[in-house]
């Protein structure tokens, strides 16, 4: 009896410890968060690809996208497990290069995703071109207001690569392509409640605003809440998806939004790592794509597949 318990305990210990041994192929995937809907969709894509490739993955991330230090700790712990490959979405494109260097020195292939790392350590980066995606949002907004008038933007973060990329992609496109549109205000809000109050204050300061761009799911929910509460007749354009935002587009509160391909990003990371350990060559950047969606094309198969609730 005792022996059986001992052997099964040993077997269990081996099973738990398995990823640390070179037997099974194990890729830790480290995201910028996990509680956000977007990351859950990336995780779903990564898990699908892991099952397809017959590898084991773990999916982790810090509590908020400001916790660069916590993410570095998670990264160091993952490297210490001696995995066969590593997927990493850097919260800071430079700060975590030294930790990644350790992984590279140990011969662990690295695939970056979502936002890039300013070094040539990653074999490839699976990402949305945020600048191009936000420019498409600018086009959608401009078209809806007749390419003239005052507009504003509410951005989810001042310092992250996605926040900066989407803000600048949007603003640059407006500046270059639409001379009769004036951007009167750019505000920041990191959750839906703050975004709602922010947008209301913006509308208060500039009652003649014709349209507002919101740069992520939380900002878009807040924008829709503010438009509903004020009854303002403005054009709202969002980013990402989620049920609230999809409902707002369906009932006309927002006219459209940009969706990335989070499931595709997750698949790309694991597929690329699987290719890397087989010695296949990878392109420097893999653009996982984005789509403009609105009431008319939300149900299209290609769009519906990348939207999440």
């Amino acid at each position, binding site marked *: 009896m005792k022996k059986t318990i001992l052997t099964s305990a040993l077997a269990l210990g081996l099973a738990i410890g398995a990823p640390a041994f070179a037997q099974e192929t194990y890729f830790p995937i480290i995201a910028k968060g996990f*509680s956000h809907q977007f990351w859950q969709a990336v995780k779903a894509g990564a898990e699908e690809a892991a099952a397809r490739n017959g590898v084991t993955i773990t999916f982790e991330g810090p509590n908020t996208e400001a916790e660069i230090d916590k993410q570095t700790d998670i990264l160091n712990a993952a490297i210490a497990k001696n995995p066969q490959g590593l997927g990493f979405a850097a919260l800071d494109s430079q700060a975590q290069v030294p930790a990644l260097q350790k992984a590279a020195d140990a011969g662990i292939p690295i695939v970056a995703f979502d936002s890039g790392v300013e070094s040539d350590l990653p074999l490839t980066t699976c990402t949305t071109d945020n600048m191009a995606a936000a420019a498409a949002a600018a086009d959608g907004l401009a078209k809806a207001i007749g390419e003239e008038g005052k507009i504003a933007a509410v951005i989810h973060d001042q310092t992250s690569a996605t926040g900066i990329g989407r803000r600048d992609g949007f603003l640059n496109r407006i500046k270059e392509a639409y001379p009769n549109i004036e951007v009167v205000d750019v505000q920041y809000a990191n959750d839906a409640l703050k975004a709602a109050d922010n947008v209301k*204050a913006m509308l*208060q300061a500039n009652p003649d605003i014709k349209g507002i761009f919101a740069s992520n799911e939380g900002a878009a929910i807040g924008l829709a809440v503010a438009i509903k509460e004020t009854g303002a007749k403005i054009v709202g354009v969002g980013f990402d998806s989620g049920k609230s935002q999809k409902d707002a587009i369906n009932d006309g509160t927002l006219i459209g939004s940009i969706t990335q391909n989070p499931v595709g990003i997750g698949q790309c990371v694991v597929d690329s790592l699987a290719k890397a350990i087989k010695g296949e060559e990878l392109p420097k950047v893999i653009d996982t794509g984005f789509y403009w969606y609105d009431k008319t094309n939300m149900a299209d198969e290609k769009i519906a597949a990348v939207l999440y609730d």
Partner: protein
Amino acid sequence: MTDTAVQPAASGKPGFFTTQTLQKAVAFVVLIALIAFFSAFASNFATGANMVGIMQATAVNGVLGVAVTFVIISGGIDLSVGTMMTLTAVMAGIVLTNLGMPLPIGILGAIASGAFMGAISGAVIAKLKIPPFIATLGMMQIARGLALVFSGAKPIYFNSTPNYGLLSPESTISKLIPGVEIPNGVMIMFIVAIIASIVLTRTIVGRMIFALGSNEEAARLSGINVDRWKILTYAICGGICGIAGLIVSSRLNSAQPALGLGYELDAIAAAVIGGTSLAGGRGTVIGTIIGAFIMSVLTNGLRVMGVLEEWKIVVTGVIIIVAVFIDIVLRRKA
């Protein structure tokens, strides 16, 4: 103790010509001055719609501020109010959307779950002798984690409860008195404040909370069951967080499980600006509500003026320090 009209002897109780009334008056003067300043220098600030907007932006922080005021007066602190709010919102979502129960049960679920978790914090503090800062720091993470676990890390929507909007964005009073477009979330904040104020100043519960904060040892020696009152204080705080959870999830028509971090600091700031002493034994609900209004008037006014977000944060920090400094100066004089 039966005659509620008699002012109890506990120090720092509200009354006229005390430093506390003065502090409240100072906070009120600051609020009026800010409104006057922005009305003069920010065009479009002084409109009815913007005043309603400011009130709506105050509702959540105001209610959380009231919750934490109870605990701070008792000589403790509660860092879990923000994530507790999120957890209770998720509980309302589970009861209403996942289980399909009627609205009153959902309201009860949010408030009861908050009170229950608050009582656990209180018990950990009272029985295990863990300092409130540490115990509620732990509870902040526990509540955040549970909110994510219970919701499956996804927002829960209230589309199957069409009258859920009654708890915040809709305005019942505008139907009774046309033209008064105050949203229900704001009315709930005022009602919570009035009831909380009565409980703190006119009931035995309030007297015990002040007694704990003024001198816990003296309270213990005079035969008061300190542990029991402490647990009750944190339970009240948690229950009020449940009301905040209802307001925020009603306004967003969804329980957002990732929201709430950082809200505890705004709530504590509102209480402190309103003259509640972090040393315990001193504070008022009305002061906290004024403090919450000062913060949202500042935020809104600077935004309407077009001040950069970064500077807005700096100014809010300065106001907190100035408010506490005034508090110290006034107390020294007393």
